[in-house]
């Protein structure tokens, strides 16, 4: 009897543990966060072993930010080479890191898009996006108009999958440029400075594309208490 009780308690404990583990919410903060709420299910929690839309966003954002951090270190090394000389070995290490992280970001973006394509929208959230005042939001926050236009272009139609598609497309373009830079560094030459300028701009524009989407989602969702209650907003 005592043994039976122990087993029962153990089962309950394991059950609670498993339930708690699967109920851990994973929300991205910086890049495209809260956009998972535009779909059915994932905003409330991921209840399966498979990664949810929210998980893929966190993963892709994490790798993208890391790659962006790497490329800034690369630029710093190029900049400082005027004083300290060029260390191609160091430059190679940095650019390989940037490429590796961007490859992973691209893969996560691809999985994210696939998952989103196979998941129906949450019509309540889409309606919030359709009625959102994009112009006022951009002006009030002083967001970069050219980049915000891209975000608005998709979200005003409730096309969240389109944002993911664009993030993927941009990641591919950045990756192509990184490989072009790698070719130069592998041959112990510095690439044309304009190549570095353009890739830097691409990183920043892609980062803001994700960040502005996150900002819109956060505000749009916050007006609906039923949806907002399901998310633990970080202020």
């Amino acid at each position, binding site marked *: 009897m005592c043994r039976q009780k122990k087993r029962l308690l153990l089962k309950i404990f394991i059950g609670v543990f498993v339930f708690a583990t699967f109920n851990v919410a994973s929300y991205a903060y910086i*890049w495209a966060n809260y956009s998972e709420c535009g779909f059915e299910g994932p905003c409330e929690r991921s209840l399966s072993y498979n990664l949810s839309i929210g998980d893929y966003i966190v993963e892709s954002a994490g790798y993208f930010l890391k790659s962006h951090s790497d490329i800034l*270190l690369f630029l*710093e090394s190029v900049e400082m080479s005027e004083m300290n000389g060029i260390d191609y070995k160091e430059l190679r290490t940095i650019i390989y890191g940037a490429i590796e992280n961007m490859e992973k970001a691209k893969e996560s973006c691809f999985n994210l898009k696939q998952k989103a394509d196979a998941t129906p929208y949450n019509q309540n959230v889409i309606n919030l996006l359709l009625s959102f005042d994009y112009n006022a939001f951009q002006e009030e926050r002083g967001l970069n108009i050219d980049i915000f236009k891209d975000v608005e272009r998709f979200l005003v139609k409730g096309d969240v999958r389109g944002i993911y598609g664009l993030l993927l497309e941009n990641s591919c373009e950045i990756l192509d440029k990184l490989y072009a830079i790698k070719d130069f560094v592998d041959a112990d030459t510095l690439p044309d*400075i304009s190549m570095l300028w353009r890739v830097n*701009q691409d990183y920043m524009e892609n980062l803001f594309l994700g*960040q502005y989407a996150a900002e819109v989602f956060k505000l749009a969702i916050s007006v609906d208490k039923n949806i907002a209650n399901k998310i633990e907003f970080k202020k």
Partner: protein
Amino acid sequence: MIKQSIQIVLKVFIGIIILLALNHNSFAYIIANRGDSIFDNDWERKFSMKSYIIEGAGYFLKSYSDYLLFLNRIEMSELNGIDYNELRIILKKAIENMQNAKNAYYNLKRTAKATPYNQDLINLLLSFDYDNFQKAKGLNRDTFKYIKIYLKKGDVRGIFCRLQKNSGKILDKLYLIKDSIDIDSFPDISILWRVNKKYSHTILFGQYAAEVFQSIIFGNKGERQ
């Protein structure tokens, strides 16, 4: 007689060394590069300005790289959990590098203030076709318009001053984030967004200035010289 000859040779040698040192080409590439070229032929000051531009850009880029790593950890905390000790270390580096960038830009601003402009190059800035340049290179309009405001008036010192001011503003916000992290509290996401915006705006601002300078000095080749 021999002593006199040796003295002359020595003087010529030292003269060559000094000339070579002052003519040493050290150009910043990424932020505000060639900005020093817009000033008159005071080689000593120009050399200092180049060094400050490189130093400022180097520290600024490093600080932004640190900050993006910080954002990476914040983002990944949703999957891996949050490690405040690691966040503190990364943020400390971002602050240190930004403080150094701000100091370098302060020195740059002071040196530029004491150095006269090269009027020929200023004239090139005054007559430069900014709108065409922005379109042809696909530069971000919102950021480029600020560069245009300064450079169409030939106000290169204003660019340096803006770089120093922005560095100061970023530094203030980094300290705000530090206050949260120091008490193991998650920082306000909207502050993280705003700091990110200021960093990238400032880098693009400096980069676009560099692109314009490069264009007026070397033509529209955009090549690394």
